[in-house]
């Protein structure tokens, strides 16, 4: 167990609490910067995809893990970001302007979608976002002048000052920088009053109100920021897939995003990264599994979503805190060995009492 002696209040504000953390995160940073020179193009591309998932996940985590509002429709923001970015670029906007514009569109739409969250919570909100996403899907399929309808639309090559970012390696660095920027902003938000207000709303709305937190304002902010991050990821994703079609952004994608934050560990930014790595690499794992299994089982179609579902269920039943929670426990086990007690993280179960009248 490391004991950190605090001598300044700034230490509670800083990202890194001690030198050990600085060392390990530095090492990780070094690794991601040299990775594309060690991996071939395919794996560099896969790693960029993981980073894109992570950016979208940051958005969803702020909403679900920190504000406690569940969205079953985040694929819609991914789609709006992707389409808006592709559209702006097709119309001749420079890459950066277009990406920022697409993010802004998502922020505005996110704020509007967030308005009903003032009046409903939990399952009602989840379903409202689901309905929103379904409608967006139909709009994308029918608004042919902008989206190309079912035919889809091609995404122009990304370039900054006529410097092409089309190669996997250049694109990797672009995505990496955006991810670092997104993480920086999200972590900043969480150590600021607005981020703390979100957490307050998650844990007790009534008490948050009594502390002078404007529920309406913070909830819509949370939705807008969340949609912004996810839309930004959508813009990058557009380049990764290269050709946009409405069926690339179904409810399954929304659920996959939720799966990511749940499996990673709700309420932590580490969880987002773990979840993204998990989601990004799972298809590879399953492909590998298919080859090594006997043909009869390996060739079953639809194996992939089934395994997704199975993993989700197993995590919820056996490790609700996600991969990050498991990691914390393992770390505690070794640092307190042999004194670790299993009940340290056991939470008292509460019995439900309905809030219904009849």
């Amino acid at each position, binding site marked *: 167990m490391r004991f950190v002696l605090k001598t300044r209040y700034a230490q*509670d504000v800083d990202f890194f609490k001690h030198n050990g953390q600085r060392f390990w995160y530095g090492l990780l940073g070094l690794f991601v910067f040299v990775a594309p020179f060690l991996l071939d193009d395919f794996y560099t591309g896969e790693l960029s995809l993981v980073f894109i998932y992570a950016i979208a996940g940051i958005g969803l985590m702020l909403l679900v893990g920190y504000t406690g509002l569940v969205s079953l429709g985040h694929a819609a923001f991914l789609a709006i970001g992707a389409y808006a970015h592709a559209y702006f670029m097709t119309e001749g906007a420079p890459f950066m302007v277009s990406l920022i514009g697409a993010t802004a569109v998502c922020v505005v739409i996110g704020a509007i979608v967030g308005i009903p969250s003032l009046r409903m919570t939990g399952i009602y909100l989840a379903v409202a976002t689901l309905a929103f996403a379904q409608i967006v899907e139909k709009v994308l399929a029918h608004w042919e002048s902008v989206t190309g309808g079912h035919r889809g639309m091609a995404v122009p090559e990304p370039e900054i000052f006529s410097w092409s970012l089309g190669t996997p390696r250049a694109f990797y660095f672009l995505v990496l920088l955006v991810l670092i920027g997104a993480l920086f902003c999200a972590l900043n938000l969480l150590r600021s*009053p*607005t981020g703390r207000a979100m957490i307050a709303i998650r844990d007790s709305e*009534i*008490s948050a109100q*009594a*502390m002078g937190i404007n529920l309406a304002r913070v909830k819509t902010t949370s939705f807008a920021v969340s949609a912004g991050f996810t839309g930004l990821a959508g813009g990058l994703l557009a380049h990764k897939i290269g050709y946009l079609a409405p069926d690339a952004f179904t409810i399954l994608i929304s659920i996959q995003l939720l799966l990511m934050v749940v499996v990673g560990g709700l309420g932590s930014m580490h969880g987002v990264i773990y979840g993204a790595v998990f989601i990004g690499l799972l298809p590879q794992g399953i492909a590998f599994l298919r080859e090594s299994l006997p043909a009869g089982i390996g060739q079953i179609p639809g194996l992939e979503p089934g395994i997704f579902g199975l993993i989700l269920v197993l995590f919820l039943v056996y490790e609700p805190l996600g991969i990050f929670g498991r990691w914390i426990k393992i770390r505690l086990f070794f640092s307190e060995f042999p004194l670790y007690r299993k009940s340290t993280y056991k939470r008292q179960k509460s019995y439900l009492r309905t809030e219904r009248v009849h």
Partner: protein
Amino acid sequence: MLAADNVSISFGGVHAVRDVSFEVAAGQVYSIIGPNGAGKTTLFNLVSRLYDVDAGSITFDGEPITRVPPHQVAERGIARTFQNTELFEHETVLKNLLIGHHVHRQTALWEELLFLPKVREQDLVFRQQVEDVIDLLDLQSYRDQIIGNLPYGVRKMVEIARALCLGPRLILLDEPSSGLNPEETEDLSFWIEDINEELDITVVMVEHDMNLVNQVSDRVLVLADGVVIAVGTPNEIQGHPDVLRAYLGD
């Protein structure tokens, strides 16, 4: 300072509070007592705008607060605690207290996203003030603990600390001593006096422990079945025949 004028509310035919009027002067410790179900907590919920009054009005510093949104009640300087504690369970004591500073923030969202020096300085100021409250209520050893792992008595104190972080001029304490042992209750009575005298905060509390009430209160209001039965100093209330009847029956 805080005044209610003929306030009423009913829930589906049950008159929880009926024509209640009272006035709390600045600097007082004002206790509201009464049997269970008398409408004491409902009265608090009306002041902090969790419920809408059916009739009557509530004013704070002469300004009506009967229709302002709930968060503005806190912005105007009224803090409160809850009967069964409503803390932010998954966070540390420190973070809970920092959330208490929310009304004093002066930074915009974009400044927070970039964590400009302004935001950092603001946070350090909050941090310093949190430390003052921690010192006042002796919470040093719990600073970095998660609320969910704390014993009930400590949670009660953390909730009072959080309310103080708001920098209120009036604090509503809903049964502060419930669930505390006699020793903790005695400490509580000193703290309430400190809060009242040193920090110059007016205190309104709902309380069942008559020792505590008698020790700290300037005025006592007795409520039964949603109606005011008596108002007076603790001494006046103790021998009041109507109060005895309300508690013990005829």
